[in-house]
C-alpha cells in the first residue's frame, strides 16, 4: 500500500506538470473570462468562425463568449481533467497488480499499456467531439473547421502529455519496462 500511495503522489506530480493549464482554463472559464480578455480574443481569432456568430445576429464573439466559456468550455475541460486524472491514477495503481513475477516479464505488459493509452487518447477525442461536435451545446456551432483542429490539438497537449508524464513517473518500479522510456528513469526513483 505504501508503494501504491507513493506511486499516486508521483502520478499527481507528473499530471501537475501540464495539468495546471487545464486547471487554469477551468477556473477562468467558470468565472467567465469577460469580453475583453485575451482568452476571448484568442478564441475569436483562432477557434470561432465569424460567419457562425454573424449568422446568429451577433457582431462579435465577445457578446456570446460567456455562454461558450461557462458552459461548453468549462464542462469539457472539467470532464477531461477528471477523466485524465482517473485514467492516470488507475494505470499507476493497476501497474502494481500486473502479474510481473519474473525478470524480463514487464516488457510483455507494454502491449497492455499501449492498448490502455490508445483507449485513453481515443476517449479524449470522443469527449472533445461530444462537447464540440454534437448538438448538446448550442455554442458549439460557433466553432469553425480550423477551430476544431485547434481544440483537438490543444486537448492532446493539455491532457495526453500530463497523462504520459503521470504514468511515466507513477508506474510501479517493476512495471516500468511496459511504459515507453520509463525504464530510463533512475533505479532509486
Amino acid at each position: 500500500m505504501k508503494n501504491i500511495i507513493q506511486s499516486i503522489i508521483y502520478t499527481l506530480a507528473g499530471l501537475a506538470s501540464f495539468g495546471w493549464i487545464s486547471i487554469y482554463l477551468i477556473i477562468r472559464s467558470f468565472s467567465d473570462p469577460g469580453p475583453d480578455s485575451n482568452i476571448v480574443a484568442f478564441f475569436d481569432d483562432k477557434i470561432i468562425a465569424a460567419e457562425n456568430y454573424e449568422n446568429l445576429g451577433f457582431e462579435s464573439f465577445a457578446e456570446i463568449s460567456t455562454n461558450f466559456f461557462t458552459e461548453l468550455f468549462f464542462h469539457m475541460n472539467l470532464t477531461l481533467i477528471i477523466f485524465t486524472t482517473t485514467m492516470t491514477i488507475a494505470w499507476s495503481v493497476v501497474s502494481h497488480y500486473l502479474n510481473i513475477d519474473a525478470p524480463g516479464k514487464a516488457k510483455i505488459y507494454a502491449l497492455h499499456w499501449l492498448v490502455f493509452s490508445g483507449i485513453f487518447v481515443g476517449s479524449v477525442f470522443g469527449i472533445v467531439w461530444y462537447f464540440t461536435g454534437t448538438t448538446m451545446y448550442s455554442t458549439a456551432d460557433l466553432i469553425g473547421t480550423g477551430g476544431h483542429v485547434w481544440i483537438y490539438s490543444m486537448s492532446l497537449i493539455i491532457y495526453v502529455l500530463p497523462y504520459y508524464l503521470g504514468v511515466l513517473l507513477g508506474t510501479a518500479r517493476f512495471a516500468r519496462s511496459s511504459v515507453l522510456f520509463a525504464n530510463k528513469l533512475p533505479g532509486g526513483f
Partner: protein
Amino acid sequence: MKNFIIGIGGTGAKCLEHLLHSCASGLGPRNLWVGMVDQDEANGNVSRTKILLSKYMNLRSTLRDEGKNDLAEDSDLFKTNIITNNDSVWLPLKGADPTLEEVISYNVLKPEVKGLMDCLYDPEEKKQNLSEGFRARPNIGAAAMLATTANEDDPFWSQIYKAIDAARGGEEVRVFIISSIFGGTGAAGFPNIARRIKQIQKEKNVTSNFHLGGALMLPYFNYQVPEENMEGELFARPEEFLDQTKGALQYYSKLFEYDKIFDQVYVTGWDPLSKLANFKMGGNLQNNPPLFPELYAALGALKFFSEDNKINDTQEIFHIGKNETSDILWSDIPNVSADLNSKESLSKLIRFAFSYNWMYGPALTGSWSKIKKYQNENWFKRLVYKNTYNDESKACEIGHEHNQEIISSMQEYCQDVLIWITDMQYSTVVNTDQKMDLIAAEFFSEFSAKNTSKRVNIKEKLNSSEKNQFNTLINDSKNLKLLNVMSNICYKKVNRDQKGLGIFMDILFRSCEL
C-alpha cells in the same frame, strides 16, 4: 559471548545440518564454533554436514567481505559467523582400522586386567574394526574415548581449552553438545565429552561465565534390518534402542542427581518413530534423511545460545516432542526467543531459496551478453548493475567469474535448502500415519525414499503454472506471491553499508518476508 557446538555421532551431525540452515535464516547467534565427533569419518551423514558447513562458511565469507560484496551487519541472511577447525570432525581413534584391542593395548595388559576386559567386552567387540564407528556399542565408544582423552595440543580440544580460558578472562562462553542417547558414538560421547569439559573447567578453576548445554535425542526413528549377510556383524539394532535408552536415562538420572554437569539439557523424543527406508551399517552409504525431531534439537541449541536465555544456577531440563495429533504443522516449531520467530525465519529462507533458484539465480547466470537484457529493469539496475559496475573498465561485471561464482554457490545452497526441507517433510512421515504439512513440495520435487544417494530430486525448471504455486509454498493462512517478491525487491531500501552482490542477496531475502 562465545558459542561452541559439538555434534556427536551421526545424529549430532544431522542436527547440525538443521542448525546450519537455521543460522542461514537468521535464527543463530552472532558467532559460533562448530565441531563434530565421529569415529566413522566417511559416514554419509557426517560428510553431508561437513560439505554444508564448508558451503555456509565460504558463501558467508564471500558475502560478508566489506571491500567487495557485503550483506552488512544488520542482515539476517547468514547472520551467524560460523567457524570450525581445518578438519571439522574429531576422530577419537586415529589410524587405519583401529580396534578396541589396539586402543587399550590388550595384548600387553596384566592378566587380571585382561580378565576384566574379557568380562566387559566379548571377543567380537574387542576385534571389531572401529573405522566405521562404534556400531551402537556405547561401551566400546566410552572405553575408546576415555582411552584417547584429548589434550590441549589436539586441535579439537584446544578449542575447548580456549573457550574455558575465555570464560576465565571474563567473557561469557556457552558450549552445547548434541547427540542421540541410543546408538554408539553419540551415546558414548555425550556424557564422556561433557564430563571431560567439566573436568577441564574445574582444573582451570573457572566458576563463572561458562555454561554447558546439551540436547539428547531419544529414539525417533527405526529401520528394517535385512536378514541376509548380517550374521556376526555388529550394528545398531533398532529393537535395542528402547532398552539402551532406558539404561542411559537411568544413568543420566544418577549422574545429574549427584553432579551438575549441564546447565540446560534439551530432551527430544518422537512417537511413533519415523521409518527409514534403508539400512546401512555405516560408512558413506549411511546417508540418513533429515528428520523433524532433529530440528527441535537444533532449535534447542539456538535457544541455549540466545542472549534472551538467562541461565541460572540450577540444572534445567527441557523436553519437547510431537503434538498429540498425527499432523505436524508450523505451529509445532518452537521459537528461539521472543525476538526470533522460527517459522518466520525458516519460511523466509525457503521462499528465498525458491525464488533465487528458479527466478533470479538463472537470470543472473551467464555472460553479460545473456544478462544484459535485464539491464533496464528496475531491480537489476538498482540492485545489480549499479553495484557490480566497474568505474575503471566502464562495464557491469556481473558476468565476470568472481561474481558468477557467488551466484552459482548461492544457487547450490538454495537447492540444499529446498532438498533439506523437502526431504525432512517426506522422510519424517513416510510409511507412518503421520502427516507433515510445512510446505507444498510436490509441484517442484520428486521423492524416492529408497534412493539413498538422491531421495529428493528437485526440478531443474518450472513451468509457469508451477511457479504460480509459490503462493502456496508455505502452508499457512498468509502467503506471498512471486509478484510480491518482485515488487518488494524494487522498493526495499538498500542499507548504506551493503556492497556488491550482498545488496541483491539481502534485498531478495528481505523481500521474501511476509
